[in-house]
Structure formats: structure tokens, C-alpha cells
């Protein structure tokens, strides 16, 4: 019996909510298969046809299995906990079996394997490196760092290095240490996202290879020798590892893509962080394979293989949408549409923009502020038994201008997830996930 495999690439920068998204997708689809009243739009789509959903056996795959049960247990526990930063890639595979009927005749059921990938969000920004040389990357990074207060120490070291510096390990190690510390500060203190290479912030498991010790450096004129040549060699090895471990096995054969964007956190982090996050998103989206190139097709046919798959649907999702009231979610969707235009996708790729909360935490309510009723949300914070009311500000419906930044958007509280029914076996409370899955699986179910 043939089984159709649909690969969904779940992309998103660090802390965009990829792990929570996958946990919720798995829990809700499993609950739907068990006949629980979840995902109403999807349930209507498969109404009258038996749907069975199960976690696919891992087989002998090299990629670790997504630990759905552990993540779900953490969300349902008392007190609940959000998934920690993802430190390695894993695969969530779900087997869907759907009864089929044509003209009243029962046909063999449709068997679909839905594969979704979890990986550290920091690694997503390694994809653009595959098409960038060390010299170009160094120039772009150093240009971006100029004038940034957190980069002063590293820039002082990098500019002090003579162009013809020898390939000394101590020089390379010091520059790498300073650059890496700067990246960590920029992520943790300034909330920046466009930080490369991703493995400097979230290394792959296991001992660190020697080629990791590089940093951006301006090259000597008229040649490539000494320290610069050593760093370029290490960069090339890093890019090769990205190509072999991430780009080809994980992003090379995608049918559909979900781009998770935490716009609300970017708005609350300030103007610079918002612009940085937009740039990071554009860089990552530009590195994905949207269309099949003639060269790829020719190479595959030459090897007597099928040409690589191309993306047919892209769903842009603004995550944590339950942190603002229902009235503002339309603006969130419009803002996402204005920021994430798939210019490289082409006309044959269908796109959708929607606000979602893969794991819902809050409830809407009307808050009277300064004598005026305002739509707001409330929920319990992690570790606090009292409800927290939140009106973080107005979400703009277009890229924010100077007037918006004059009235800052408040930092989003970390709410605890709503209690999933039956310890998660009855699904996970969500917002908008139903519509997103319906869009992704249209034409399959």
C-alpha cells in the first residue's frame, strides 16, 4: 500500500514557538483521530470519513524522534512549563489514514505521512550562508556591527588585527571568543535575531569541531593568506556542515512551509530589534528552495532520480496571537502580510497569513481603562496564582512608523498555558491552528 509523504518545513527564528507548535499539532491531530471535538474546521472537512491518526514509527531514521509526549506532559503538568530552547533537530512524523469513497464505492483508504521538523531557530539563519562567500559574509557582518554599542569590544579587536596576520591559533580563538560573546549579548540583552552563524549561539550536540573557531575578518588586499585564509577555510567547513546536516536533508525536499513569526515580541523589543527581526526573516525566507531550478532538475535526472520537490503552499503565522485581544488580531494579520511578502515564491505558490496561538493561554475580556472600555486579555503567569490583565498597546496594521515607537508596546508577559483536557489526550487549546492546518492540508484530506 503506497503512502504519500508530505514534508512540512516549520521555520521560525529562535523562540518563535516551533516546539510548542509541533506539540499542539500532534496532540490536536491525535485527538481528532480519536473523535474528540477539536479542530472544528478540519473535522468538518473529514466529516463522514473515518480518520485515524498515529505517531509514525521511527524506523531506522537517523534523525531523532520529536519527543511529543515529554513536551505535552510539560504543558499539562501543574505547574506547567514551556519547552526549553531546542538544542538539536528532531522529526515529528504522523500517519494519517483516511477512508475514501467515490460514487458510493469504498476505495482503499488514503495513507498520508505528515512529517514536520523541529530544530533550533538559530540554525535557520545558517541557510543564507550556503550561498555566501566568507569575504562577502565578513564584509556584511562588519558593516552591520559598526556603531553598535555591544560590538565595540569585538570591533576593536577585529580592526586591530593586521591584514597579513599569521595563522595563529591564539588569534583565531580570541577573535572567536569575543565574537561569540557579543552574539550572545545581542540575543539576550538586545533581543536581536539576525545573528550568524547560528551554531555559535546553539551548538550542535557533541564535542565542538575545530572549524567552529572563526569570526568575520576583513581580508588582505591582493591575496588570501595567514589568519584570513585559515578563517576562510573554517567558514567553508562550517558551510559544508550546514549543507550536509541541515540544508539538504531537512530543507531540500519540502512540500509546504509554515513560517512562524513572533511579531508581538519584536514590537515590544523596540524599533531596532523589530527591524532586525524583519531582516532575519527575509534572509531566511530568501534561502529556502521555493522553485525547482533547471540545474537541479537536470542534475537529478542525470542521476536517474526524481527532481527535488518544490513548495506549493506557504503559511505565515503570527504566533502568540492570544496575547492581544480578538479585535487586534486582524491588525496582526495585516502587519504580517505587509512584512512577509514571498517575493521569491512566485505566482504558483499559494500563501496565507494568519494569527495563531498554538497553545492558548489567555481569555479575552473588556477592561475599563480611564473610563473607556478596551478589549484586553488575561491569564495566569507561570508561577503566579493570580490573573494578570494585559493591554500591551495597539498593534499597527502596517510596518510601524516613528509615531508608533513614541508609545512603546509593552513587554509580553509569560502566561501559563490553559489546562489541556484529559492531560492532553483531548487536544491542546489553540487559536487559529485549525485554519492553518486546513490551509496546509487542503488538497490532501
Amino acid at each position: 500500500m503506497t503512502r504519500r509523504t508530505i514534508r512540512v518545513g516549520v521555520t521560525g527564528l529562535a523562540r518563535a514557538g516551533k516546539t510548542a507548535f509541533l506539540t499542539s499539532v500532534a496532540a490536536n491531530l491525535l485527538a481528532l483521530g480519536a473523535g474528540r471535538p477539536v479542530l472544528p474546521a478540519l473535522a468538518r472537512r473529514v466529516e463522514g470519513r473515518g480518520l485515524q491518526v498515529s505517531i509514525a514509527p521511527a524506523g531506522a531514521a537517523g534523525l531523532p524522534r520529536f519527543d511529543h509526549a515529554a513536551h505535552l506532559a510539560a504543558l499539562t503538568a501543574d505547574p506547567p512549563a514551556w519547552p526549553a530552547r531546542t538544542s538539536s533537530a528532531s522529526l515529528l512524523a504522523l500517519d494519517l489514514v483516511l477512508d475514501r469513497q467515490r460514487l458510493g464505492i469504498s476505495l482503499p483508504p488514503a495513507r498520508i505521512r505528515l512529517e514536520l521538523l523541529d530544530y533550533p531557530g538559530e540554525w535557520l539563519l545558517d541557510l543564507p550562508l550556503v550561498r555566501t562567500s566568507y569575504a562577502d559574509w565578513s564584509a556584511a557582518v562588519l558593516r552591520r556591527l559598526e556603531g553598535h554599542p555591544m560590538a565595540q569590544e569585538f570591533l576593536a579587536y577585529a580592526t586591530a588585527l593586521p591584514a597579513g596576520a599569521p595563522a595563529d591559533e591564539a588569534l583565531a580563538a580570541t577573535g572567536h571568543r569575543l565574537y561569540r560573546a557579543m552574539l550572545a549579548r545581542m540575543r539576550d540583552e538586545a533581543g536581536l535575531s539576525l545573528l550568524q552563524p547560528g551554531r555559535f549561539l546553539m551548538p550542535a550536540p557533541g564535542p565542538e569541531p575545530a572549524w567552529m573557531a572563526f569570526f568575520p575578518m576583513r581580508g588582505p588586499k591582493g591575496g588570501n593568506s595567514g589568519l584570513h585564509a585559515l578563517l576562510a577555510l573554517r567558514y567553508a567547513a562550517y558551510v559544508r556542515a550546514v549543507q550536509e546536516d541541515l540544508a539538504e536533508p531537512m530543507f531540500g525536499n519540502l512540500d509546504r512551509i509554515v513560517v512562524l513569526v513572533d511579531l508581538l515580541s519584536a514590537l515590544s523589543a523596540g524599533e531596532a530589534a523589530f527591524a532586525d527581526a524583519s531582516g532575519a526573516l527575509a534572509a531566511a525566507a530568501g534561502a529556502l528552495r521555493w522553485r525547482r531550478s533547471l540545474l537541479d532538475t537536470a542534475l537529478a535526472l542525470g542521476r536517474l532520480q526524481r527532481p527535488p520537490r518544490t513548495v506549493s503552499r506557504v503559511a505565515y503565522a503570527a504566533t502568540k496571537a492570544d496575547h492581544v485581544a480578538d479585535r487586534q488580531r486582524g491588525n496582526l494579520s495585516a502587519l504580517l502580510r505587509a512584512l512577509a511578502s514571498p517575493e521569491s515564491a512566485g505566482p504558483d505558490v499559494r500563501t496565507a497569513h494568519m494569527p495563531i496561538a498554538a497553545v492558548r493561554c489567555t481569555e479575552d475580556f473588556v477592561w475599563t481603562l480611564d473610563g473607556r472600555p478596551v478589549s484586553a486579555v488575561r491569564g495566569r503567569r507561570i508561577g503566579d496564582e493570580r490573573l494578570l490583565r494585559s493591554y500591551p498597546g495597539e498593534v499597527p496594521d502596517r510596518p510601524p512608523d516613528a509615531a508608533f515607537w513614541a508609545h512603546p508596546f509593552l513587554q509580553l508577559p509569560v502566561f501559563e498555558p490553559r489546562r489541556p483536557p484529559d492531560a492532553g489526550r483531548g487536544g491542546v487549546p489553540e487559536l487559529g491552528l485549525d485554519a492553518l492546518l486546513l490551509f496546509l492540508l487542503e488538497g490532501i484530506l
Partner: protein
Amino acid sequence: MTVPPRPRIEVEDAPATPIPASPAANPAPLRPRIELEDTRAERLHAEPPPEVLTDPAPSRRAPLVLAGAVTLALGVGGLSLANFVIDQFTRAAWLGWTTLGVATAGVALLGAGVLRDVRAVLALRHVDGLRADLASTEPRRIMSAALDWAASVPGGPALLPALRAVNDPDAALALLRSGPGQALRGEADRMGRTAALQMVAGIAAMPSPSLDVLLVAWRGVRLVRQVAQLYGVRPGTLGTFALLRRTIGAATTVGALEFAGNAAAHAVLSNPLLAHLAGEVAGAGVAARRMVVLARAAAAACDPLEPPVRR
């Protein structure tokens, strides 16, 4: 008759003060804020699922006409029998006692048959209940049903300690599927293949094509009953009807297995003699293949590990 005033626009002579902007039309922007409530609150729950309005289920009660006919048949039959026994007593005491003995034995046998049928129907209902329990999302319900079913099928009791040891419903179901579930399916397949062989031989030996239908029907019903007995369901007459109904429902879910049935039938017919016989007799191959599929459908109808049967 009054003349209506003409519309006009005029400039006033006196200078006017500017009209103040309405505060309601352009209110000051609200300051974002986050505040903690004073009282403690329960953790927020999932919203209740939307109420699903469904048509009322059709009544499963027997029509009044049928109930009346059965009452009449049983009542009149019983009364006639009683009158007959009394009548016999008036003729001779020994004749009365003998008639009473015969009547009692007959009624008892009838009652035993009915009881057996009722038990068979209840056993099928029990399979439905187990299936619902095993497909539920409540761990305790699943574990209880798993233990219950394992205790009642061949090879299941040996698994009971292992089932009690694992505290995971998914692992328990996997154990049942790979253990007794697979063994029972294998045995049902073997029964199907045996019936297929008999079908080929029987149809080849049948003198008249019209008798083929009877042979296929008889062997099919017997096969379904055999498979049901394998799963611990012993159907009587009524139970057989209920079982056949379920088997037809299950056949739609195992429609995909037709391919497997084809393969099995081809394997059976790979014997040169049987292939020759099957070639001689039109429809023997089809009948043989259907026996294999029928065995699988009957197994699906009686196996609580299978998904719910559509009826």
C-alpha cells in the same frame, strides 16, 4: 397656500469663535498597561467544545406490528400448548404427564437456543464496548479493556502479567496488536485460505451451476461463524445474522485488503491441479478470493483492536 422657503447660503456679519474639537471624536491614546488582579484564580481551562446539533437518532424499537405478531404467535402458541396438555390429562393421566414432559423439554430447548442467541448478540455488543474503550482517550478505561480482552482470547492470558506491568495504554495496545491480535488474524487468514481451497474443489465437483450459489453461501456463513468462534464469540441463529451484518460493514473497511486477498488466492491457485480445476469452473477463483476477504472482514468485525465497524 404657503410658499416653502428657498434654500440659501449666507455669510454672518459677526466674527465667530472656532468650534472646539469634540473630545469623544479624538480621545487621547490609551496608555498600555499590565496589572495583576488581587484574588487568586484557577488555571484557565480549555473552552467547552461548541455544541453540535445532530438529528435525533432513529428509533431502534421494533415496529408495533411486529411486536403484536410476535406476541400473538408466542401467546397463542403457548396457550394452545397448555390447552393441549390439559386436554391430554383429561384423556389419561399417563398421557398428560408424557405430553407435559415432551412440551417442557421442547420449551426448554427452545429457551436454551434463545438464551444462546441472546448471549451471542450480547457478546457482539461486548466487542463494540471493548472497541470503544480501547479507542478512548482515558488511560484507565483502555487498560481495563485491554486486560478484559486479553483474558478472553487464546494466547492472551500469558500476556496479562506484562500488561499489568506496563503502565502505558499505548504500549499495552501495541502488545495486544503484536501478540494475540496478530496470532488471531493469522489464524483467521488460515481459515480463509482453507475455505478458499474447499471452494475451488467444491465448485469443480458441483454437478449443477445453480448449486454453486448454495455452496458459496453455506461455506461463507460457516466461515464467518468459525472466525467468530476463534475470537470467543459463539453465534447462534440470531447472532449469526447480527454477525453477518457486521461483517458486511467491516468488509468496507477491509476493502483495501482485497489486494492481499488476491495475492492469497493466487498463491492458493498456483497449484497446477487447482488452477486447472479453477479454470474449468467459471467463478471458482472469484469465490475463493472472496473467502479470504470474508475471513478478514469477519475478523475485523470481531476484533476490538480494529477501528469501529460501519453498519
